[in-house]
C-alpha cells in the first residue's frame, strides 16, 4: 500500500479541525491530522490560530466575576428550607 493513501489532504484535515481541537477524533484520525500538519505549514497556521483563539476565549471567561453575595444567598436559602 502506498504511504500517501494514509495522508489527509488539506480539505480532509480542515473538516476535522473542530473535532481535533476538542479531542473528539479517533486515535487514527488524530495521527493522520498530525501527519498532515507536519508537512503543511498553511494548515499548521490555521490549526494554531483556532487553538489559540479557543484557549484565549476560555481564559477570558474564567475572569468573569461571580457575585460575591451569591453563595451567601444560597446558603441562607438552604438553611431556611430545612427549618
Amino acid at each position: 500500500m502506498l504511504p500517501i493513501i494514509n495522508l489527509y489532504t488539506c480539505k480532509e484535515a480542515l473538516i476535522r479541525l473542530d473535532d481535533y481541537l476538542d479531542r473528539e477524533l479517533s486515535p487514527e484520525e488524530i495521527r493522520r491530522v498530525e501527519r498532515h500538519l507536519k508537512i503543511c505549514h498553511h494548515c499548521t497556521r490555521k490549526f494554531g490560530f483556532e487553538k489559540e483563539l479557543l484557549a484565549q476565549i476560555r481564559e477570558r471567561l474564567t475572569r468573569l466575576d461571580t457575585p460575591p453575595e451569591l453563595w451567601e444567598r444560597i446558603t441562607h436559602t438552604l438553611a431556611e428550607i430545612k427549618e
Partner: protein
Amino acid sequence: MDDAVTTTAYKQEYERLLKPLMRIAFGVALHLTRNRDDAEDLVQETAIQAFRAFPTFQPGSHFKAWFLRILTNLFLNKVRKKQREPEIASLDDAPDLYLYTQVTLSGWKKGNQDPATQLMERIGTEQIVAAIAALPEEFRVVAALYFEEELSYQEIADILDCPLGTVRSRLHRGRKILQRTLWELVQETPPGAALPQTKGGN
C-alpha cells in the same frame, strides 16, 4: 438527634460539592439568561431544586454534570413557557476559518506576534460574553457549556439529553456564528481603544 446529624451531614456534603461550581454555574447561567440578575436567580433556583433532589444523586457520579443538567433544564423550561414558538436560527453561517481569514486580510500582522493574540488584544471580555449572548438559543445553550467548562461532546449531550451528533453540529455552527459576531464587534472598536475586561483586568 440522628435525624439532625444526618440532615447536617447531608447539607454539608451538598454544599461541599456545590461551592466549587459557583463560577462555572454562574458563567453558564449568564450566557443562557444574558443578564447578571437573571443569572443569579437561575443559579439560586437551581441550587434549591438540586438540594431537594440531592437524595436521588448517586454518590461518586458526576455532580457537576448533574447540577448543570438541572440548571439548563430549568432555563429551557422557563424559556419554553415564555415563547410559544422556538427561536429560529436564521443567521447565515460564516465561512470556515472566518476570523483567521479576516485577520490575515486585515494586514494587522506586526512582528512575530501570533495573530490570535493580536485579535484578542482588540476584544474585551464583555464583547465575548455579548457574542455568546447573541447566539440563537439552540446554539447558545451548547456554547455556554462548551466555553465555560471543557466538557466532551458526550458530556454535553448527556446534560442536554440530546444526541451527540446534535451537540457536534450545533457547536460547529455556533462557533462560526460566534466568529462572525466577534469580528463585527472588533470592527466597531477603534484600534487601541480601552476594552472592558471585568475583574482581573486584561
